[in-house]
């Protein structure tokens, strides 16, 4: 089983795709470690997106796939940031998948 190791904590279980098995294991440090695995250095620009995702999940219980993810960022952080190109630069590959992983959310279903 894959896991993350933090000092003075039991290992944190991950699934095969690197998502947290238990959402309650999430903390900012855990996010940093998950990012390091990618590898990605989390900047303030990453964090504001992660915060938006976590707030959205808190409110609605959904892990948004690509299109709603982009729209969500546009709604909460402005049109400049709610664009695929911007998010692709921050989270290269599949932004909705990567950002949800770092935010400790379940894997979005039907995410292309």
């Amino acid at each position, binding site marked *: *089983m894959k896991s993350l190791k933090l000092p003075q904590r039991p290992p944190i279980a991950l*699934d*095969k795709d690197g998502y947290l098995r238990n959402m309650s294991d999430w903390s900012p440090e855990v996010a940093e470690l998950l990012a390091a695995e990618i590898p990605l250095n989390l900047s303030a620009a990453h964090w504001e997106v992660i915060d938006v995702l976590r707030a959205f999940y808190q409110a609605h219980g959904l892990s948004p796939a690509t299109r709603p993810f982009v729209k969500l960022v546009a709604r909460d952080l402005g049109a400049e940031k709610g664009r695929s190109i911007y998010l692709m630069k921050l989270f290269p590959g599949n932004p909705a998948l990567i950002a949800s992983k770092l935010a400790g959310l379940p894997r979005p*279903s*039907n995410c292309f």
Partner: protein
Amino acid sequence: MKLTVLVHAAPYSSQAAYSAYRFSASALAAGHEIYRLFFYYDGVHNSNSLSIQAQDEFDLIAAWRTLIDTHQLDAISCVSSALKRGILDAQEAARYEKSASNLAEEFTLSGLGQLVEASMMSDRVVSFGG
């Protein structure tokens, strides 16, 4: 015509899955194409290869398997419905570190997107369930 058949009922708990089977077989016999069979919700139980039926009762799962094999149908069990109900293929069993897999080999696990895509590509969608 191109038909997609959606099954959201388990075999034996109700007649619905059997009706879906009879409908599908009749459609094929009439020369129609089945674009996809999609098993959703409790319907994923139709793809459980470990189900055992009394000898004197109709084996619906075996019938599905033969139909799918004979006509080379695209038969998909919804992956999230299946995992919840303990229907796993070898890959998912490995992913979740489970000791066995039981998805009948004629079926594939995939997402709900496959149902939406099938709805877009088919002339008609017929649902059986409840």
